């Protein structure tokens, strides 16, 4: 007779909400959003529109009384919605290749 107290367990596919469940979607990006902190008013509209959502306000940052907008580049797909919606037009979409060259030089 099969015992019920051995190691066997019924398995199903269950996934729980977790950060980056779809993998490092930052790899999809060809343009990187860069926020101009001097112009940014920290209105958080970019964070509201980000479909991922990977823009958050870090309230502890000393650069501004409200803190600072932070983009999580590991997951940002570079869709550009934030740049499009920013009322101050202070988010620039910069080609990823430009950073590649920089990072390569840093390596040396």
């Amino acid at each position, binding site marked *: 007779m099969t015992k019920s107290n051995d190691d066997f367990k019924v398995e199903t596919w269950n996934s729980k909400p977790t950060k980056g469940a779809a993998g490092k979607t930052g790899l*999809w990006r060809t343009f990187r959003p860069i926020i101009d902190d001097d112009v940014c008013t920290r209105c958080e509209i970019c964070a509201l529109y980000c479909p991922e959502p990977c823009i958050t306000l870090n309230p502890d940052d000393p650069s501004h009384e409200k803190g600072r907008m932070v983009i999580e580049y590991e997951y940002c797909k570079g869709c550009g919605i934030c740049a499009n919606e920013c009322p101050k037009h202070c988010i620039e979409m910069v080609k990823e*290749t430009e950073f590649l060259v920089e990072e390569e030089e840093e390596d040396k």
Partner: protein
Amino acid sequence: MFEEIRWHGRGGQGAVTSAKILAEAAHREGKFVQAFAFYGAERRGAPVETYTRIADSHIKRHSQIYKPTVVAVLDPALPKILYMKGITEDSTLIVNFNKEKAFPDLKCKKHWIDATQIAIDLELKIADSYITNTIMTGAVAKATGLVKLDSVLDAIKGQLNERIWDTNLEAAKRGFNETHPYSKGV
């Protein structure tokens, strides 16, 4: 001859077409071919891999390519870790870069081509992104000598709509002529 070519691009950049064009070019030279991709949830912009196999006899293999003899990278912004896997010292690597990069950690036959600039010159563009697939097919023909340029040109005519022949034929020719081996050595 049993060559396994792996193409790296992003969803929507035409890496599947690259694989097919090279396959058809080899077919025109009497070789046996396969062109395929790994399919999942297709997403524009996500890194994709496609494959071409070229052999002297009917190809019985149906599994994926683990040790590519040739790797072609269509998009300069793809992380190196994606296209490094399975590369051996005998592999040929052709990367779309706007300048010579060293890749000191990669031991293989390295070539570079500024395919994005050629795409900008020729206005090869779909939905705001530059398409380098035909350029890279020309580049692979030059770097590996697997197929003749003429076969690539014929294959482009076979695979693409007549409306876009002219730019893509020019693209493949420039890809063929502007591919450089790395001077910094292996």
